[in-house]
């Protein structure tokens, strides 16, 4: 991800940041083109339900300006979007911007907790299998990782939901109630409010979807951790440390893990980017009211304002997350120069 050609870090950051509006412009244009390519009549019908009349179709088309020339429509859209107005859903007339404000934290929280679970389990398994190569733990964690990569997440979600509701008394409805909503991340909100019971409740509701969603990143983290630990463990300085009689745990944590941290960090950043946009199926199955299922359902219903707004936000997040990972990487590893 980091080009090796050397240049000064600041100009690199600047270039990347300057690229952001370009990318967003292209994303905005392409999502707009997509919705433009669907006939206005079809989009208007998305607003109606059982009874459809020509008069209502026409008035919806007029209200939304879908009868205007392409350029007018696009410029109006851009103009409004720059002011933070992303239009309204034609289905329930909710402003897209406020829907995103509500749903993005839900997705972010799910993604973060899921990544946390993936890192926790993945790194433990990776370290264990690197230090005990070819032992049963190595084989079983390799198997687990392969399973994580191979089992369809939506299938796992279906089965997990069935099993949980059958055997474990965990609420699966909604995200819970953190008291006052400040950040929209309910775990954080409930902690800020000092309400441990609310925290526990929100945590319970989050746990199952987050664990299911964690399977793929967990598998990847396990593999990366194992591979980079093996690289490091073979290195000279570790052998030196070992010969000096340093305790095993100290070697592992202070030396080996510290050096294996970089690739893990990179992969974690990449995975976070994917988790933020890719949890469509998990969100749908668990009725998690997040951004992924919002956009997917709007797409399926020909309701395009949510699609345009949602994808724009996701793309921005994705680019920003990747950029911060690059920067962090350069910060942690003095050998890396940004180019």
């Amino acid at each position, binding site marked *: 991800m980091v080009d090796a050609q050397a240049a000064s870090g600041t100009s690199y950051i600047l270039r990347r940041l300057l690229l952001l509006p370009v990318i967003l412009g292209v994303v905005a244009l392409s999502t707009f083109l997509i919705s433009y390519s669907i006939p206005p009549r079809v989009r208007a019908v998305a607003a109606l339900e059982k*009874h459809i009349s020509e008069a209502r179709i026409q008035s919806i088309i007029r209200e939304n300006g879908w009868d205007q020339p392409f350029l007018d429509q696009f410029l109006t859209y851009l103009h409004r979007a720059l002011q933070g107005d992303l239009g309204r859903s034609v289905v329930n007339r909710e402003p897209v911007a406020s*829907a995103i404000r509500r749903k993005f934290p839900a997705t972010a929280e799910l993604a973060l907790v899921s990544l946390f679970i993936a890192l926790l389990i993945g790194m433990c398994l990776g370290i264990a299998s690197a230090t005990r190569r070819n032992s049963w733990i190595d084989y079983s964690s390799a198997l687990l990782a392969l399973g994580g990569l191979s089992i369809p997440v939506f299938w796992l979600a279906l089965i997990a939901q069935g099993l949980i509701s*059958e055997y474990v008394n965990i609420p699966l409805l909604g995200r819970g109630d953190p008291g006052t909503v400040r950040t929209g991340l309910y775990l954080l909100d409930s902690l800020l409010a000092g309400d441990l019971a609310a925290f526990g409740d929100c945590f319970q509701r989050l746990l199952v979807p987050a664990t299911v969603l964690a399977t793929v990143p967990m598998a990847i983290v396990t593999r990366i951790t194992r591979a980079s630990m093996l690289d490091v463990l073979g290195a000279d300085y570790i052998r030196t440390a070992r010969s000096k009689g340093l305790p095993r745990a100290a070697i592992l944590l202070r030396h080996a893990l510290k050096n294996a941290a970089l690739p893990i960090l990179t992969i974690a950043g990449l995975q976070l980017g994917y988790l933020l946009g890719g949890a469509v199926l998990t969100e749908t199955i668990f009725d998690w009211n997040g951004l992924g299922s919002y956009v997917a*359902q709007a797409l399926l219903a020909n309701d395009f304002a949510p699609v345009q707004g949602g994808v724009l936000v996701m793309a921005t997040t994705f680019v920003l997350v990747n950029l911060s990972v690059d920067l962090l990487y350069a910060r942690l590893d003095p050998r890396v120069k940004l180019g």
Partner: protein
Amino acid sequence: MRTRLLITLLALTTFGCSQRSDWTDKDTLVYGRGSDSRSLDPIAVSDGESIKVQSNMLERLARVDFDGAIQPCLATEWEPLGDGRHGLRFRIREGVTFHDNTPLDAQAVAFNLRRLLRSQSPYIDFYSTILPDKIQVVSNQVEIETSRPDANLLRHLAMFPAAIVSPQAVKTLGQDFGDRAIGTGPFRFESWEKDQRIVLSRNESYWGEKAGVSRIEFWRIQDNNSRIKKLVNGDLSYIDNPNPQDIETIENHPELDYQMRKPGQEISLLYMAMNTSRPPFDNALFRRAIAHAIDKKKIARLFQGIASVADQAVPPGIYGHSDNVQGIEYDQKKAKQLLEKSGIKQRSFTLAHMSNSRPYIRQPHEVARALREALRRIGLEIKIEKHEWGTYLPLVQGARHDLCLLGWTTDNGDADNFLTTFYSSSSAKVGSANNVSFYKNPRMDDLLNQQRNEIDPKKRQQILDSIYRYAAEQSPIVPLVYVSDMIAYHRTLKNVRFHPLGEKVLAPIRIDSSSETPN
């Protein structure tokens, strides 16, 4: 410190703060349903999910009770206008206030009726006889004059589009009225987190008997399967339309109960329409061949006990259904003969269906596959096409299909609503048709008009019977099954009842925690 937090966390996770009794403690009805509402404004919608919430917050001049009779509501009484004028005079109930504390009066009622008549409500045709200029307020009475005698006027004023909402709120909220409607009902609007839940709270100053629970939460749980799971684990206390295959789970569960509309009282029809604007479906013999080929019993079996075989277009729970007509029987031999006789050589067609479940169909793809197999057995090759509801309706209403699956649930409880939808040339306009077989026949139109203008019930039934017989002969649509609806709930909920028109009247429900079986 860190360990203590961890232990707390673990304890919370494993033992839980017992969600099960949560709704009993909070005196809350936690209602799970398949989709969110679209709007809370009565003149803006026609979807069941919007109506469901509205009818617990908003009231009409009259209402239909659990036995199907029309009862006073916001009007205490009514009488014909007399003096040679057609229409009704309503006396408005006194001492009623809207949820925003503005008073209900005759002016407010007139305001609402004029608003309805000016609107693009999908139901506007039901009110087409009302003369907008002749809605008059006389002290606390409202006179509604119609252009001709309209036997259904009262019935239609008791329907949800004619709900009376706060004029003050309509003026101040403008376009946003649909986000937080304000009426006079037993529940008032609390909050709406779109795509997720709507919360209503008890109207403590309700004019009638106060609601049994202090709060209702309507949750959107799209997946049928997921809804029943959440009912079982206690997240929800009441759900719509569980899958029939879950009846067994509910019966075996000590804390759960269910109700379904009984056979013979269904108000929904599932049918297959043939696009008669496209050859060879303009050939009645060919259409009848197809109708004979379909094993409706097998299709009914797919509904696992919540559907029965349909022999006419009007379900048995609807006024005007006939017990004296026989539908087209399943007879493959006859189907093949008719096919031969029709002279149609084309053998391959498409069958379009919606991808998602609707109130009248849980598993559209299974019904479609059963139909394909049935037609395959008389030598027709059917290609199935699946579409999301949002693209499906434009497709079939734009006449871009051969065969399609669709259903209808009553709007007003009368046969005319079904027959006009299916057979009238007036609803066959390409692009916005409800008559998706695009069937146009002057003789049928004439029969439809006759029954509409006939006031004598016996004579009207005779006309209706002849319509059913003629419809079978013509078969632009094949009525497949009458579908029942179902609800499931925790036994701690008392007074759960089915409404004959499918409305969800939740005010009488209360939670009786004393009878809860111990965990």
